[in-house]
């Protein structure tokens, strides 16, 4: 029977998980059918791991239900869910350190493998060895878990999950931190497992895994970008007697790329600085609604705004020239939540901008313009932002580099679900990735378009930008 016509194996309905005032999952519903290879994609902090924790039982959820094979498992403890056939591997491997590889698997076979309960000890040992052989770990059977390499730990994590004889296997970022060939190794393993009637949910942000031949993933779901909304109303701001912004009204919604277009000196940078808390508005309001709570940005310090998940890539890059690329990146992770994710964000930064990896120990001041722009964006990514403000990314770059940079920003929005507000003077490049746009002239919004087509068709735009050549 093709997967689509079967009853769902796992159904998550209206799942909500709150930690105090913070909503990690908001009314999430997912259905997974038997035999699917399901990819779960989303930016840091979008709740992928929280969702997995709720499915595997590590977290309690209220409200919402989790149904597995037509049984409501919402109130069950993790070990009971494992016995019913849900297995998971952890983002950071959690081996039983006092045991050998085979002993690790035996725990699974002793406690979770319900179908094998009648099997005798020697039979279970045989099962264990066959799993190890399939995973390529047979030679390490009697090696202590503390002596395994990173990729071997990942494999053992998967092997142990397999030893519970699951019907549903959840792999939580099993590729993080692995080299390209190691990623291939683990991917091949997962693919071979999938062909055995095991349904797989795969969480990844490694592009290589997600982009593999189409035949691999049968369906994917982007974690709904959590509610985020920036609303600016009638904003006035200036420097002394000079008014840079007059009555600016604009809004940005979750998942959008919004372009703020205009030539220099028209107030784009001032607006960005206002949002980031560097410049205080004189009139009007700025509010950011995130995870159900509304924050008045005009009253918050820049640190607080960064904490909320807003990162600014400033005009002119503003790197620390005497520090290395790596040091610049590390400083980008000043925020507490960011520090917890520092390794993952670093991996993400290097994956998004592969050229930076080889430049790690180079002084930022000695890099070319294009490299510096990449570093500036990567540094902003280190704080796990949900809203990315980019001020004039094209300045000082050759046309080819501009094109590449814009494409990269588009990627960030598409693959990571980042909401982007971009100030640009290069109209043609900006509209390649924008969903909507505003035109600002002398501090006033003169055009507020709901789509790129609307922008292109606008008379003012045609007048300003050389006849609006698309």
């Amino acid at each position, binding site marked *: 029977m093709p997967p689509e016509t079967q009853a769902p194996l796992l159904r998550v309905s209206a799942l909500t998980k709150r930690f105090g005032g913070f909503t990690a999952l908001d009314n999430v519903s997912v259905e997974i059918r038997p035999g699917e290879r399901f990819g779960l994609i989303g930016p840091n902090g979008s709740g992928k791991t929280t969702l997995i924790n709720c499915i595997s*039982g590590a977290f309690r959820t209220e409200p919402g239900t989790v149904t597995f094979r037509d049984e409501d498992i919402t109130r069950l403890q993790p*070990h009971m869910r*494992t*016995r019913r056939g849900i*297995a998971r591997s952890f983002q950071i491997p959690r081996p*039983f*350190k006092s*045991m050998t590889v085979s002993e690790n698997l035996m725990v699974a076979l002793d*406690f*979770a493998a319900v179908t094998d309960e009648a099997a005798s000890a020697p039979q279970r040992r045989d099962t264990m060895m066959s799993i190890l052989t399939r995973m390529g770990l047979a030679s390490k059977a009697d090696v202590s878990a503390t002596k395994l390499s990173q990729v071997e730990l990942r494999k053992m994590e998967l092997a142990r999950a397999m030893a519970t004889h699951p019907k549903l296997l959840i792999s939580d970022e099993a590729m993080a931190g692995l080299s390209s060939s190691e990623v291939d190794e683990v991917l091949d393993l997962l693919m071979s497992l999938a062909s055995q009637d095991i349904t797989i949910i795969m969480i990844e942000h490694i592009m290589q895994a997600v982009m593999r031949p189409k035949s691999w993933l049968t369906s994917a779901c982007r974690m709904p970008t959590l509610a985020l909304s920036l609303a600016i109303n009638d904003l006035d701001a200036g420097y002394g007697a000079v008014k840079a912004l007059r009555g600016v009204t604009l809004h940005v919604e979750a998942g959008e790329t919004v372009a703020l277009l205009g030539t220099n000196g028209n107030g784009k940078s001032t607006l960005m600085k206002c949002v980031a808390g560097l410049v205080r508005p004189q009139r009007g309001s700025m509010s950011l609604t995130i995870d159900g709570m509304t924050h008045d940005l005009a009253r918050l310090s820049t640190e607080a705004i960064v904490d909320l998940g807003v990162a600014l890539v400033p005009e002119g890059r503003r790197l620390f020239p005497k520090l290395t690329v790596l040091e610049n990146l590390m400083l980008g992770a000043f925020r507490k939540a960011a520090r917890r994710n520092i390794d993952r964000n670093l991996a993400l930064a290097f994956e998004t901008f592969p050229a930076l990896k080889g430049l790690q120990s180079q002084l930022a001041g000695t890099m070319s313009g294009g490299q510096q722009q990449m570093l500036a964006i990567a540094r902003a990514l280190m704080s796990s932002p949900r809203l990315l403000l980019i001020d004039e990314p094209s300045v000082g770059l050759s046309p080819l580099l501009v094109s590449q940079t814009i494409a990269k920003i588009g990627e960030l929005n598409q693959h990571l679900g980042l909401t982007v507000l971009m100030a640009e003077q290069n109209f043609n490049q900006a509209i390649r990735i924008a969903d909507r746009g505003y035109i600002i002239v002398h501090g006033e919004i003169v055009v507020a378009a709901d789509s790129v087509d609307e922008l292109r068709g606008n008379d003012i735009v045609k007048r300003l930008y050389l006849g609006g050549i698309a």
Partner: protein
Amino acid sequence: MNRNGILFWVGAILFLVAALLMTQVIGNEYPFFACYVILQFIVLAVAWSILGGYAGYVNFGTSAFFGVGVYTAVFLFKAFGAPLAVQIAAAAAIGAFLGFALGLLTLRMQGIYFSIATIALTIIIETSVTNWRFVGGASGIQMQRPPVMSPFNSYVQMLFFVQALLVVVAVAMARYIQGSWVGRGLQALKDDELAAECTGVPTLRLKLLACVISGALMCAAGAPAAMYLQYADPSSAFNLNYSVSALAMSLIGGTAHWAGPVIGAILLGTTQQLLTVTISSEVNVLVLGVMLVLFVVGAPEGIIGLIRRVRRNRNDGEG
């Protein structure tokens, strides 16, 4: 039963036979006093290790369980004239219940909070018993030994043999747990509780089981002590030294194997007896503390660990 099992039980039976012979052959009571204390510590250390060694939850409340065992015996004897066997059985039952209650209350807490909670429980129970007039309150109570049954000539000899029986029971239980799925599950949850839970190990249930068995054994070990001393008072029945000793003997002996606490108890118990008699009881505690610290710092796997290391080196050398 496999070869190891047969060896063990043969050894256990020989041990009991030897103990019985001792009571028939040796007339002087003193060796029995001394050996009784050591056997008692073996039971306490083995019982402690079931929760502390296998599961990794450091219980400072051994004194509480021991004291409850003592006072259960006191109460039953004073109220009903109950025989020793009933005292011990009742103590074990109450110990199991207490262990269960303690587990339910505290096992959701992390490491050190569990440990502090066990200290708290000890003090609270001690304070409550101190205020209980029926069993003598703070001033304690005198006990009269009932006439001794044959084949024993003196009551102390009988108590000695009873404690030997308890040792066999305790060690057999520890050995069974260690070799069974219970032991593996406990080891897994000691290493990583969340991973264990997600691998199918029912962690809360196993922890409660360990608490129940551990508590029952500790209480059972305390019951004969009332008759042994012919006197019971809260400050000595609930003496914190029992907690430290059980912990130290297990850690020094090594918690990975059931033989560890046995070795630790024999070693330290004997040392304690010698020191208390020759020098002073304070020096005894000092030595206990120093040895605990030394082993925890230098030989974390205890004597068992040292033996294993020597064996491994020898094998590596030969191989």
